[in-house]
């Protein structure tokens, strides 16, 4: 839209203002705003405001007031003292006129804001601004500030004001503290304004003291709002001149509780102050509040709230009560008097309001927060109070017991049909509230330990007898919440055995009666949470596992059951070794009957592999492994075959329909290629789970000087390994375009890297090396492969040393060739980063491998590559390059010839590196990269004699140094400081300051 021309008459301006506040397109409004703002900012702005304010239309008057604010903010420095006085007198008069001629309240508020803006810039002209306004309101006309000397005391003047004038004065007092409060009270520019604001305190007190008792025209409401604004300001200003007088208003404000129309505002005020500035109230105020809460009036509101938490007054009262409780939690906890106990009883009762959690009962969650604080307070006192007798403790314990019972009742699931009616936020809220209860129970456990466990076990058993399923579920949930706290202690085991020796397993297997799905879910989760208990009590393990396996096929319970099986089998692996064959048969049965959820199947395979790992006899272990591995191998062979012969696809066969997992019915059925890929991927993921399951849980001694075992001594194991490698190579060659295939293969390799004992996935280093170096640049997710190679190098360092250099010498050219193939260093960030990290790792341990690399051009390329990366913008490769240079600069070796080579390389590359580094520190680097870049600088300064010359060369070369902002002197100071620090920690701060100097003052906004 074209810019509008500037209006030439007042009528045109008024039409534009009316159009601005009418319904119009956003473009039109933007255009009008733009032209009106130009007018406001023009020299005629003052005159415009003066003309517009006399208009009878509210929108136009409002715009006039806005114009005054804009002009004051922009041009107050240009106003002389006389002009400012005249302007003040005019604005007050306009305000009085507006008040008298029935102008809308929003205009009056805006004019009050204009007056406050005037005060901010000219507070010295009318330091007693409120008294001035009140006086003018009283006499009905605007008078010069000097006339104030003739006025009566503010108290008396305020007493003369009618309710309308009182309302205006309170609006001004509110705007005054809010607007001045927005300015920086530590800035010299506004220091006096804040002082003068505080100088108005006694006038405000006089005004509000009257205002709080006058209910006409909403005077009391606005007085409460104003009082709150002044308290908020007092909290920040923390001056006794302000807080002490303000405290005298607490009593009159408290009286407003009893006025029905004022209850909401009063409760809001007191809740806010109790929550955010509880020290504002004195002991006498707290005593008054306490009496109030103990009154009949409070009892009525409390009952109202317990009946219906959607009742607005009831809810406000509840929040007020909680805010009071929070502010006085320590006193309430240690007091045993009746009033305090009654108050705590009421706070317990708030956990038992009518209705289901969150959707119907809104007070439960805030109340739970209070009780969580209370528990923490009890815990703190119990463990820190060594001398006291804690006579209050039995009272606190009794309250906490009631809190636990109420919370247990509240977290019980509603009937399924009720739950189905809830919207998603209500459901999520219900789940979150249950988690909050779990947190609180864990805190209470610190105090009550086994008593709490025993309490829930009793509740469980009682509910089980009466078949109260929601209560059974609630008890299971609470017991599950305590699983992280319960230790390996016989008294806890005794309590848990009361659960697991009960008909718990029969119940969950629905042997006698059907039970709600949620109860089964929570029961299965309880088994998983107490897996360590089953390690100590293997007599219950078969029941637990049978139950879990029976649930694996269930669409809802399958996932959690498989997870529980995995956890339980992994924890209890040594007890279950005799059952490995049975587990494999069971898996076979499940597989042949249905297509399991992919993740559930991986968990089951992981579980069985964990048990196999614990079998002590190697032959038996390998035999079991091969049995399980066969399923995977067959799947892979089927996938490869399907890819070669799409015609064999038969979706009625579960062995093929395994590949349909990601498909849902409205979409077209995927083709044989896609199904083949999915079958292969599932098989690979299961293989990865097997590899993780086979990881040893114990630590073994590593003989670093031993001869490396290039191949396993057990021929059967060697064949198995060879088979797995061939299988992975086969999948990769058939489905080579799939990045997920490569990534899963990497995961399989990684699982073996952490192992120190021979195993099917602990491949000989030569085999792994060959796998990597055969990967061409076109391989998808090459960055992941490089990262896996980094892990491999790490695993080599943890093992025998003998053949390590040989493997590294094979990997190194592959890595650098890969980097060379990149069109640009930043074209694949993952490859650049992981490639640099890999070379860095090799150089750190075996520098000879790096410096003997053939042809030498490879190494030269690599060094220049890292410098290019350092000059780039990608943070991750840049960080890796900085680390590499830190390592290289400080590289030390015992071989003199090699050390000489390194020194020569440094002499050649040092100036180049110094240039790159200083270009970064001189402003090119991002702020977040500075710490990383400081490391190589520290190393350079500390270990290279020519560092100063190299740095100096860049700093004072105008063509090379990126910033013109830093002066010659600043550069000199930087250089001196860095050299003097000799690589000390303070270098980081010096670098940061210099970077800021080079970037300019615009960047000092953050540290």
């Amino acid at each position, binding site marked *: 839209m074209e810019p509008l021309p500037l209006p030439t008459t007042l009528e045109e301006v008024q039409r534009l203002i009316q159009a601005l506040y009418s319904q119009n397109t956003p473009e039109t409004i933007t255009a009008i705003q733009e032209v009106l703002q130009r007018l406001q900012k023009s020299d005629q702005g003052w005159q415009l405001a003066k003309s517009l304010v006399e208009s009878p239309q509210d929108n136009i008057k409002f715009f006039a007031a806005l114009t005054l604010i804009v002009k004051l903010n922009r041009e107050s420095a240009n106003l002389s003292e006389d002009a400012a006085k005249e302007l003040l007198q005019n604005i007050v008069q306009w305000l009085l006129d507006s008040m008298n001629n029935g102008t809308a309240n929003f205009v009056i508020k805006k004019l009050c804001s204009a007056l406050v803006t005037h005060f901010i810039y000219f507070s010295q002209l009318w330091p007693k601004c409120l008294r001035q306004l009140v006086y003018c309101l009283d006499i009905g006309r605007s008078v010069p500030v000097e006339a104030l000397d003739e006025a009566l005391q503010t108290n008396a003047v305020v007493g003369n004001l009618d309710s309308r004038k009182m309302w205006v004065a309170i609006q001004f007092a509110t705007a005054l503290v809010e607007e001045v409060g927005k300015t*920086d009270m*530590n800035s010299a520019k506004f220091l006096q304004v804040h002082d003068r604001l505080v100088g108005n305190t006694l006038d405000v007190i006089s005004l509000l003291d009257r205002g709080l008792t006058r209910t006409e025209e909403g005077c009391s409401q606005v007085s409460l709002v104003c009082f709150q604004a002044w308290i908020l300001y007092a*909290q920040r200003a*923390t001056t006794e001149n302000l807080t002490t007088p303000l405290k005298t208003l607490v009593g009159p404000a408290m009286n407003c509780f009893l006025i029905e129309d004022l209850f909401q505002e009063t409760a809001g005020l007191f809740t806010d102050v109790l929550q*955010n*500035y*509880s*020290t504002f109230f004195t002991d006498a105020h707290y005593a008054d509040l306490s009496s109030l809460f103990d009154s009949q009036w409070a009892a009525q509101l409390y009952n109202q709230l317990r009946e219906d938490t959607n009742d607005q007054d009831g809810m406000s009262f509840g929040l007020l009560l909680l805010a009071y409780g929070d502010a006085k939690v320590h006193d309430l906890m240690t007091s045993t008097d009746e009033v305090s106990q009654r108050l705590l009883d009421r706070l317990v009762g708030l956990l038992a309001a009518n209705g289901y959690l969150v959707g119907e009962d809104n007070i439960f969650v805030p109340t739970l927060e209070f009780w969580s604080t209370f528990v923490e307070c009890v815990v703190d006192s119990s463990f820190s109070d060594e001398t006291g007798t804690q006579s209050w403790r039995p009272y606190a314990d009794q309250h906490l017991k009631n809190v636990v019972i109420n919370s247990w009742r509240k977290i019980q699931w509603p009937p399924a049909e009720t739950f189905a009616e809830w919207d998603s936020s209500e459901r*999520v809220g219900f789940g*979150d509230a249950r*988690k909050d209860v779990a*947190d609180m129970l864990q805190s209470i456990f610190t105090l009550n330990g086994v008593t709490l466990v025993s309490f829930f076990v009793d509740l469980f058993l009682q509910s089980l007898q009466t078949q109260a399923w929601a209560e059974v579920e609630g008890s299971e949930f609470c017991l599950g919440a305590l699983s*992280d706290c319960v230790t390996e202690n016989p008294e806890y085991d005794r309590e848990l055995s009361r659960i697991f020796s009960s008909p718990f397993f029969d119940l969950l297997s629905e042997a006698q009666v059907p039970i709600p799905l949620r109860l089964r879910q929570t029961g299965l989760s309880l088994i*998983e*949470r107490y897996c360590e208990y089953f390690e100590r009590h293997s007599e219950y393990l078969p029941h637990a596992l049978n139950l879990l396996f029976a649930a694996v096929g269930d669409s809802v319970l399958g996932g959690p059951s498989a*997870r529980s099986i995995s*956890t339980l089998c992994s924890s209890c692996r040594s007890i279950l070794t005799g059952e490995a064959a049975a587990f494999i048969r069971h898996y076979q049965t499940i597989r042949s009957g249905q297509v399991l959820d992919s993740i559930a199947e991986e968990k089951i395979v992981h579980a069985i592999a964990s048990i196999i790992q614990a079998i002590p006899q190697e032959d038996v272990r390998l035999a079991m492994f091969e049995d399980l591995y066969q399923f995977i191998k067959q799947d892979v062979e089927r996938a490869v075959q399907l890819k070669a012969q799409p015609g064999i696809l038969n979706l009625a066969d579960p062995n093929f329909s395994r590949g349909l997992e990601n498909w849902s019915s409205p979409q077209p059925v995927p083709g044989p290629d896609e199904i083949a890929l999915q079958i292969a991927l599932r098989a690979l993921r299961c293989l990865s789970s097997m590899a993780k399951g086979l990881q040893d849980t114990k630590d073994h001694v590593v003989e670093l000087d031993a001869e490396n075992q290039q191949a396993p001594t057990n021929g059967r194991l060697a064949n198995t390994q060879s088979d797995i490698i061939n299988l992975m190579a086969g999948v990769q060659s058939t489905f080579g375009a799939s990045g997920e295939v490569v990534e899963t293969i990497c995961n399989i390799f990684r699982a073996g890297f952490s192992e120190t004992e021979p195993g099917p996935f602990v491949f000989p280093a030569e085999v792994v090396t060959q796998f990597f170096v055969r990967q061409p640049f076109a391989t998808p997710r090459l960055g992941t492969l490089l990262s896996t190679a980094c892990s491999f190098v790490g695993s080599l360092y943890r093992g025998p040393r003998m053949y390590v250099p040989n493997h590294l010498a094979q990997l190194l050219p592959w890595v650098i060739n890969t980097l060379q193939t990149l069109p640009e260093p930043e074209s694949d960030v993952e490859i650049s980063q992981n490639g640099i990290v890999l070379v860095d790792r090799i150089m750190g341990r075996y520098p000879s491998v790096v410096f003997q690399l053939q042809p030498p051009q490879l190494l030269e390329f690599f060094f220049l590559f890292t410098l290019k990366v350092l000059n780039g913008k990608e943070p991750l490769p840049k960080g890796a390059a900085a680390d590499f240079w830190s390592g290289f600069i400080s590289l030390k070796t015992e071989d003199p010839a090699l050390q000489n080579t390194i020194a020569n390389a440094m002499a050649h590359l040092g100036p180049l590196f110094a240039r790159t580094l200083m270009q970064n520190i001189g402003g090119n680097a*991002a*702020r*977040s990269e500075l710490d990383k870049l400081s490391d190589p600088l520290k190393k350079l300064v500390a270990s290279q004699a020519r560092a100063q010359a190299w740095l100096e060369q860049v700093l004072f070369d105008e063509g090379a140094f990126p910033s013109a902002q830093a002066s010659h002197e600043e550069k000199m100071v930087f250089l001196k400081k860095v050299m003097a620090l000799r690589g000390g920690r303070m270098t980081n701060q010096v670098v940061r300051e210099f970077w800021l100097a080079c*970037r300019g*003052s*615009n*960047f*000092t*906004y*953050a540290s």
Partner: protein
Amino acid sequence: MATNSTNFYDLYRHGSLGVSLTDALDDLISAERIDPQLAIKVLNQFDRIVAESLQERVKARLTFKGSLDTYRFCDEVWTFLIKNVTFKMDNGGSTVQADKVKIVSCSAKRTDEK
């Protein structure tokens, strides 16, 4: 620790989100698309939103166990150094191991608000 003009700590500016935000603001200032005053406001807003979101919206939780190596309480800031830590996530009970963890915790309410 807390910024002057707000009631919120600025410690989350040093987390990865805050650091990235500051870098982005630097870029915008370099390109003369915003001025530093706006950047300050954005960071103050960030402090507020992070504190409020962590308090009100984040419901995910984890538990951890480890050996408490060192702890201190200085200037209303607790610091714990924990070794051999196992974190247990809320979703599915997956675990993460760490050799050493440093926990810095400040009171949700500043001293002057208490």
